[in-house]
């Protein structure tokens, strides 16, 4: 497509005659008023008026080279590019001031929790994350540890998970408690894999952007919201699961 003076004028927000003067200054870099008159075919008054407008728009620089002689320079592409970069940076920062979502999207979160009640509360956070994202819960858990949460809580939690239609994939050591847990709980929405010689000191749940770990001795853990960490743990889990 051939570019027209009109396009340049619209793009830069200047008049048609300014566009003619500006283009000649860009091509020839430095021109006097007389030279500009000749090249553009515009009369002296018009050229002078347009040059003044271009100077005001920061597109042209005026240089004094003699007592009564001025020459004019079109702002170079390099300078224009620098201005563009500056404008881009300003725009990015302005966006941060104006759009709250940009501040939240990659924000890390971490919290500590203690005691059985803390662990129960965090299990519910994990469940809500699964509901929100529609993802399966990936868990590495020891049946003995999970028993600490109490049979009423476990039953209610599983009921709620099934109501939400959230699937859990659980890798667990192959102890008698784990085998019993598997017999009692395996269903359409609960898949359990027993791994022989698999020792764990901490129980782990991963879903969405959340990674939860806790141990029994002492009874405490952390919950992190970190997309990259969650993705890494999902990869490790899938390898163990054999996906």
């Amino acid at each position, binding site marked *: 497509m051939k570019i027209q003076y009109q396009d340049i004028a619209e793009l830069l927000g200047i008049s048609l005659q300014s566009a003619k003067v500006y283009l000649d200054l860009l091509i020839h870099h430095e021109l006097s008023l007389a030279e500009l008159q000749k090249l553009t075919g515009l009369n002296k008054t018009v050229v002078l008026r347009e040059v003044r407008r271009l100077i005001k728009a920061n597109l042209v620089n005026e240089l004094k080279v003699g007592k009564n002689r001025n020459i004019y320079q079109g702002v170079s592409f390099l300078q224009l590019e620098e201005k563009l970069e500056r404008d881009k940076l300003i725009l990015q*920062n302005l966006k*941060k*001031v104006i759009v709250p979502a940009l501040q*939240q999207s990659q924000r890390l*979160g971490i*919290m*500590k929790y203690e005691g059985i009640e803390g662990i129960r509360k965090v299990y519910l956070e994990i469940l809500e994350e699964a509901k929100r994202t529609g993802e399966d819960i990936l868990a590495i858990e020891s049946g003995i540890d999970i028993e600490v949460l109490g049979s009423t809580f476990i039953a209610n939690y599983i009921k709620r998970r099934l109501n939400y239609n959230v699937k859990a994939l659980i890798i667990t050591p192959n102890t008698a408690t784990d085998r019993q847990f598997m017999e009692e709980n395996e269903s359409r929405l609960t898949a359990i894999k027993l791994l022989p010689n698999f020792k764990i000191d901490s129980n782990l749940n991963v879903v969405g952007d959340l990674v939860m770990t806790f141990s029994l001795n002492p009874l405490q853990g952390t919950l992190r919201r970190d997309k990259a960490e969650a993705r890494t743990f999902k990869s490790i889990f899938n390898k163990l699961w054999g996906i």
Partner: protein
Amino acid sequence: MHVKSLIEYVYAGRKRKNGEPVTAHLYGVRNILVEEGIHEESMLNTALLHDILEDTDLTLDYLALKFGDKTAKLVDLLSKDPSWNTSYCRMKSSMDEIELSWIDYPEAVTIKMADRLHNLYTIDGFKPEKQREYIQETEEMLFPIFERIYEQNNLGRLKKVIYNLLQRLRKEIQLIDERLSQTKAV
């Protein structure tokens, strides 16, 4: 722009659950700090702005631009992160952040205490069950952190303020407990 002009503008017409204007709570928190001898502008401004990130679409950068980095940081510390799914995690992570930042920003815990105290002063609008839950949350999740921070040595003049606020919180909880047990008895 003056902080008061901003909060009057963004909270215009908005009420709390007890029917009071939202700004009454913000001024209430500020007044508690003034009663405790706090005159530092960034703290008093933060008291007025402490809920603004949770309640509006304004951003942290906007607050930094208008009121400076320190006020913005304090407001950020006092704002619960909405990315958590449950109220437990929103509160717990917020308190963890306040505790982790006490060395650089002991003002945050002080304002949080004034905020909780004013909420307790105006708890009457809630049902007894909700009041009990609120007290339980204060005692189990907030007090341990308030007390741990109070035990620190580098709090300067805020140590006395934190001590006073702890006493006022305990006293207010005792009064509410008494009121609730009387309601139960009736």
